[in-house]
């Protein structure tokens, strides 16, 4: 297993390299640069200033030189300096990543704590009233795009009832920036994500549990005279969790990059908003860093899913 993980990790390197090359080339293909939009009537010779800035950022050098320069600096831990926000990239990424991960983890916790129990309840009495009711609600909820769900949540819980803030990742006044403040701000976007995620998990749980119910070992367990709830807990539930754990691994992959739209909608200062702004400002160093982290997130999630799969299901062996 250790060897397998090691090989997989090595396999990630060429993929990440390709992704950074692709982002780099596409980014430079976009028209304009970070210094086009400077607006300051106090500056007399704008063209000269822009020229100086472009030179200091290395944007006048050939593309391959810029890429090699970025890569060598990046692997040494120097992630560069933002063109427009006058900050080290790493200082921008740190808090943004924290916010995004908080949002994603909260959403995932809500999803799991709602989706799996609902799915189990559905599977206990399939084709009953509860099952059909939940199935129909799930289908409708799944069809509503989650950002539209979020708009309704903002309208009811932030604007009408004023329970939660409609914008931002931190508040103002005393207590701003505390952990609870962050949780409070992340609640609505997390709920919007979780409502959709819940439908996926409840359907998934229900389906796998119904599949497992007809397996031979379940019949054997009943034949041994075990009680219904014991069979359910120890035999059905455990085996039904196998595909769900795998799905959880893929969710991890989406944690860094899966909240871009909600962050845009809520002006939530996370990786998504940072990326959107970096694309708009042509802030190359920030964009390279965020896109690399998105890609690492996806690849890491896939790896975790494969490993989890082998951990929960001893029949699977990688070698």
């Amino acid at each position, binding site marked *: 297993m250790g060897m397998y993980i090691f090989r997989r990790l090595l396999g990630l390197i060429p993929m990440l390299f390709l992704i950074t090359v692709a982002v780099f080339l*596409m980014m430079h293909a976009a028209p304009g640069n970070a210094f086009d939009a400077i607006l300051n009537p106090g500056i007399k010779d704008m063209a000269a200033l822009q020229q100086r800035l472009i030179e200091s950022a290395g944007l006048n050098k050939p593309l391959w030189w810029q890429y090699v320069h970025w890569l060598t600096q990046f692997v040494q831990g120097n992630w560069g300096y933002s063109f427009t926000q006058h900050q080290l990239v790493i200082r921008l990424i740190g808090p943004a990543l924290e916010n995004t991960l908080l949002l994603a983890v909260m959403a995932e916790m809500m999803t799991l704590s709602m989706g799996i129990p609902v799915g189990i309840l559905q599977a206990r009495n399939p084709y009953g009233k509860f099952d059909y009711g939940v199935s129909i609600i799930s289908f409708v909820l799944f069809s509503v795009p989650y950002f539209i769900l979020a708009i309704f949540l903002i309208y009811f819980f932030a604007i009408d009832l004023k329970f939660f803030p409609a914008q931002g990742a931190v508040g103002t006044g005393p207590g701003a920036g505390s952990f609870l403040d962050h949780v409070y701000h992340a609640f609505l976007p997390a709920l919007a994500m979780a409502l959709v995620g819940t439908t996926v998990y409840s359907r998934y749980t229900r389906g796998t549990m119904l599949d497992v119910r007809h397996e031979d070992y379940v019949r054997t367990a009943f034949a041994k005279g075990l009680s219904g709830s014991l069979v359910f807990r120890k035999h059905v539930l455990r085996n039904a969790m196998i595909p769900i754990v795998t799905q959880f691994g893929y969710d991890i992959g989406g944690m860094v990059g*899966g909240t871009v739209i909600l962050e845009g909608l809520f002006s939530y200062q996370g990786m998504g908003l940072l990326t959107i702004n970096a*694309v708009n400002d042509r802030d190359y160093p920030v964009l390279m860093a965020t896109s690399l982290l998105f*890609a690492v997130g996806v690849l890491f999630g896939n790896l975790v899913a494969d490993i989890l799969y082998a951990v929960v299901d001893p029949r699977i062996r990688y070698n």
Partner: protein
Amino acid sequence: MTTHKFPVEVAALTRVRIDKSPMRLASERFMDNKVALVSMIVLLLIILVSVGAPLLTHFNPNVQNLSNTDAPPSALHLLGTNSEGMDYLSRDLYGGQRDLLIGFSDTIIVLWIGIVLGGIAGYSGGWVDSLVMRVCDFMFNFPFLLLIIILSSIFNTTGVGLLITVIGLTGWPGVTRLIRGLFLNLRQAEFVLAAKMAGAGDLRIIFKHMIPNIMGTLVVTATFQMASIISAEAALSVIGFGVQPPTPTWGNVLSGALDYFTLRTEPWAWLPPALLITLTILCINFIGDGLRDAFDPISSASLKCLPGNSHLQ
């Protein structure tokens, strides 16, 4: 008793098989599905009012009227006007034209790329297959939204045509992988081997024997694709990378009404586009679900499976 009934059943089955083509049987099963049928009617209505927008409203959706901005609903402007005095109703209706155009054309583009690439990969196998699959893997690992955002900024997406291109260029890997899998399975099927033995060429086998067999899956995939593309259009507008105003789409009519003030005081601004997007996607998904049941009655238990995850999540 079973043996007694058996010949009758066989006779009944054979008669059905002779009478009706699989397509005909599927469409009959679809017509029996009430939810899908109602969704079909609602979707047709949405298409009708969007396409027939010039007949339903005489306001040009792109014309400003700065003397009548942020007007509440009235007899003249049924859904009021926006901050530039453009009529919301006409923007919603004309917006539907763009959304449906984007949905239909991108579905066709994505399916077309999927059939060509996935078909070639699945049919020929070997190094072509692994090349196509590596490219798909790369696209899957590439953060999808990032790709679409950067592409939009490269092309400076302002028009509908460019957005269609961008979504079409990024949406194909999932469909390609699916179709490749289908072709890979069919390649070993007896009827394909029989066709090969009879001397049929590759193109004939693909178009006359394989494609008709995956037609059901293709149609179902197409509906779910269309739903996710319409959702993608609106999502991109919300973060500012969709079609730029004044050209109306549901997405940018919605995103233009998302400031605190408008959300709180002017529900007529954001509610109609939000509901139109939701209703359209819901109808398409119900139709897709109905089609899946119709084409594949064995594995179907209505609502058992929800549509495939939209690629924005």
